[in-house]
C-alpha cells in the first residue's frame, strides 16, 4: 500500500469507490495500411482516490486534463490500461461484460450535453424507463408506467410530459430527463460529468439544487466532474484538482479553497472572475503563462513545471507523489509546505 491509499482511507471509513493507480493510455497510430503505434496519449496517469458513501467528490481541471476519462474509467465505459477500481470492495476492472452489466444497477452517469445525450427518436418516458427494461426491473406494463411517472415528478417534470420528445423540452428540462434516467435503477453511485456547464446560469442553480436534494433523499454518492470551480465548491464535500492526467491536490472543500497548496490550484482559483467589480480588482491574481502541454509528450518530472513560477531544477526530475501534508489535505508538489524531502 502506498502512502496515499493508506492515508486517504481512514480506518472505519465507509468507502464506496476506491481507485488505485488508474492509468488510461490511448494509442496513437500512424500508417495507412499497416497501423503502427507511434506513441500513447497518457490521458490518466497513475491516479488514486477514494469516494466515501454519501459524499460528493468534485473533480476539477481544464479541458484535456483527464477528468472525464477518469470518470469513464471508474464506470468501465473505458477499460483502463492499468490500475483497479473497487466498487464496494469488488474490482470492476476484472469483471467481464455480463458481470459489469449487473453492476450498472448500482452506478449510473449524467452527461454534460442534454442536447446530444438523449435519443431524439425516443419519448421522455421511454428514455427514463429504458434502464428498467435493460435491468429487468419492471414486472409489468403498469408498474413500468407508474415508476416512470414517479421518476419524472421526482425531478420536477409533469407526468404528462412522458409522451413528448426531447426537442420539445428546454435545456434545463432535458437535463432533468437525464437525471431521472440515471435514477431509474436506484443506483448508489452517480458520475455527474459536467452536468450543468451546457445550461444557462439561471437554470444551472436549479439543477445543482435538484442534485443535492436527490442526494439527501436517496443517500447517493457523487463523483462530480466540472471545470467551474464555484459550482464545484458549492456541491462537493472534497475536491480533487487534476492537471495533465495527474491529481495534483485533494482536500476538503473548505481547505482547498481557503488554503490551496499546489501552485496550479492557486493559479486556477485566482483566474476565476468574481461577479463584483470592486472585490474582483482587489483580489490577487496569478497569471499563468503558456498553455497545457500535449499529453502525448508530457514534460519530465512534475508535469506542471514548465508553467510554474516556483519550479526549480529538481522539479524537472522528480515526479512528485501525492502526500498528506495536513490532515485530509494531499498535494503533489515538492515545494508545498510540509511536503518533506522529495
Amino acid at each position, binding site marked *: 500500500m502506498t502512502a496515499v491509499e493508506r492515508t486517504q482511507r481512514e480506518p472505519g471509513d465507509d468507502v464506496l469507490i476506491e481507485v488505485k493507480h488508474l492509468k488510461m493510455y490511448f494509442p496513437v497510430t500512424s500508417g495507412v495500411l499497416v497501423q503502427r503505434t507511434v506513441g500513447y496519449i497518457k490521458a490518466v496517469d497513475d491516479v488514486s482516490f477514494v469516494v466515501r458513501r454519501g459524499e460528493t467528490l468534485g473533480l476539477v481541471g481544464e479541458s484535456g486534463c483527464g477528468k472525464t476519462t477518469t470518470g469513464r474509467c471508474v464506470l468501465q465505459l473505458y477499460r483502463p490500461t492499468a490500475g483497479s477500481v473497487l466498487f464496494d470492495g469488488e474490482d470492476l476492472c476484472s469483471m467481464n461484460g455480463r458481470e459489469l452489466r449487473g453492476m450498472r444497477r448500482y452506478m449510473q452517469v449524467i452527461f454534460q450535453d442534454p442536447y446530444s445525450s438523449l435519443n431524439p427518436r425516443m419519448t421522455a418516458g421511454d428514455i427514463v424507463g429504458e434502464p428498467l427494461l435493460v435491468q429487468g426491473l419492471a414486472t409489468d406494463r403498469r408498474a413500468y408506467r407508474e415508476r416512470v411517472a414517479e421518476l419524472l415528478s421526482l425531478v420536477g417534470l409533469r407526468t404528462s410530459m412522458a409522451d413528448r420528445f426531447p426537442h420539445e423540452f*428546454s435545456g434545463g428540462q432535458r437535463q432533468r430527463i437525464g437525471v431521472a434516467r440515471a435514477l431509474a435503477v436506484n443506483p448508489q453511485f452517480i458520475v455527474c460529468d459536467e452536468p450543468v456547464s451546457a445550461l444557462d446560469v439561471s437554470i444551472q*442553480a436549479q439543477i445543482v439544487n435538484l442534485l443535492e436534494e436527490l442526494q439527501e433523499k436517496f443517500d447517493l454518492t457523487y463523483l462530480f466532474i466540472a471545470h467551474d470551480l464555484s459550482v464545484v465548491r458549492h456541491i462537493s464535500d472534497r475536491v480533487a484538482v487534476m492537471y495533465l492526467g495527474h491529481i495534483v491536490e485533494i482536500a476538503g472543500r473548505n481547505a482547498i479553497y481557503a488554503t490551496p497548496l499546489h501552485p496550479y490550484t492557486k493559479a486556477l482559483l485566482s483566474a476565476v472572475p468574481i461577479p*463584483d467589480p470592486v472585490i474582483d480588482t482587489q483580489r490577487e491574481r496569478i497569471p499563468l503563462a503558456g498553455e497545457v502541454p500535449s499529453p502525448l509528450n508530457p514534460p519530465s518530472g512534475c508535469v506542471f513545471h514548465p508553467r510554474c513560477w516556483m519550479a526549480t531544477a529538481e522539479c524537472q526530475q522528480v515526479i512528485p507523489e501525492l502526500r498528506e501534508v495536513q490532515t485530509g489535505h494531499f498535494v503533489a508538489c515538492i515545494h508545498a509546505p510540509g511536503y518533506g524531502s522529495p
Partner: protein
Amino acid sequence: MATLLEVKDLRTHFFTREGVVKAVDGVSYAIEEGETLGLVGESGCGKSVSALSIMRLVPDPPGKTVGGEIIFDGQDLLKLPDSEIRRVRGKQIAMVYQEPMTSLNPVLTIERQLTESLELHLAMSKTEARREAVRRLEQVGIPDPERRLKQYPHQFSGGMLQRVMIAIALSCNPKLIIADEPTTALDVTIQAQILDLMKNLSREYGVSLLIITHNLGVVARYADRVNIMYAGKVIERGTARDIYRHPSHPYTLGLLNSVPRLDLPRTEKLDPIEGQPPDLMHLPAGCAFRERCRFAIARCAQEIPPLRPVSAGHLSACFVAETLLSRAKEHAA
C-alpha cells in the same frame, strides 16, 4: 467622450414557418469612444443577434432587421448599400467570434487569413501585408510569428487561435471590436490571458470593445458599462459597479444570486430563478420576466415596463425598480 456607435430602437425579427421570433425587439444602446461595453444575457436573449445586426450579418431569410437605426460615424449602417457596408466590416468594425476553432477557414494558412483584409482594406502589397501580419502576431503574443504564419488553424491550440482572431480583428486599426463570447470555448486560465490581452490592446489603441457574454464575472472584470438583456430587450443598464452593487431589475438580481461565489462563504442552497426562459414566439403580455419574477405586481401583466432612469446613468425596465434599488443600497451599507 464622444459617442462612437448608437443603436436606436433596433428590431430584428426572424420569420419562420411557425411564426415570427422577435429576437431583438426595440433595443437601444450607445458605445463611447474607447469604452468597453458589456452585453449580458442568457441564450436566446438576443445579444448576439443585436451584434450581428450592427454588422448586417443576420442571415436573411429568415432574419430581417425590421426597424431602428444604427448610427456609426454619422451614418446609418442599416441604410448603407452592400458595397459600402463591406468597407465598414473588418476595417472600422471588426469581430471576434466565440469559437476560434470553427470560425477560421481550415484550408487557408494563417498568413492568408491575416493578409486578406490588409490587402483589401488598406491596399497593401503582398510583402507589406506580410510584414504587418508578423507584427500583429507579435503584438498578440504569438511566439515565432514567421513560422506560425505558414501554418494552418489545426496546428494551433484554442487559446492561440483566439489570439490570431484578435490579430485579424486589429489588423486594420478598427474603431470598434465586437467580441461575441470571446472566451466561452476556452479554459479559465486561458480566458484570463485572452481578456487581459484584449483589454490592454483596446487601451493602447483607444479601440472600443463590445463584449457579449453570459458570464457575469467576465463583465465585472472588464466592462465599464453593462447592458443586461432578457427576451429581446435591454432590461437594465449602468456602470459595472451599479449593476453588481445595486441591481435594480429582478432578473439581474436573480442572475447574481443564482451563481455560487468563490469570495463568499458557501451557502446551504443556491437561489435559482425558477421557471424557464420565455418562448420568443409566444411572449406573454406585459413584462416578459413576469412569470418568473418574485416581485411581480398586477400592472406587470398589462404594460411592458419601459427602460427608465433610476439614478444617474442607471436604467431599469421594472415598475418596482426603486424598491429594489433602495433594498440593494441598504443591503450594501
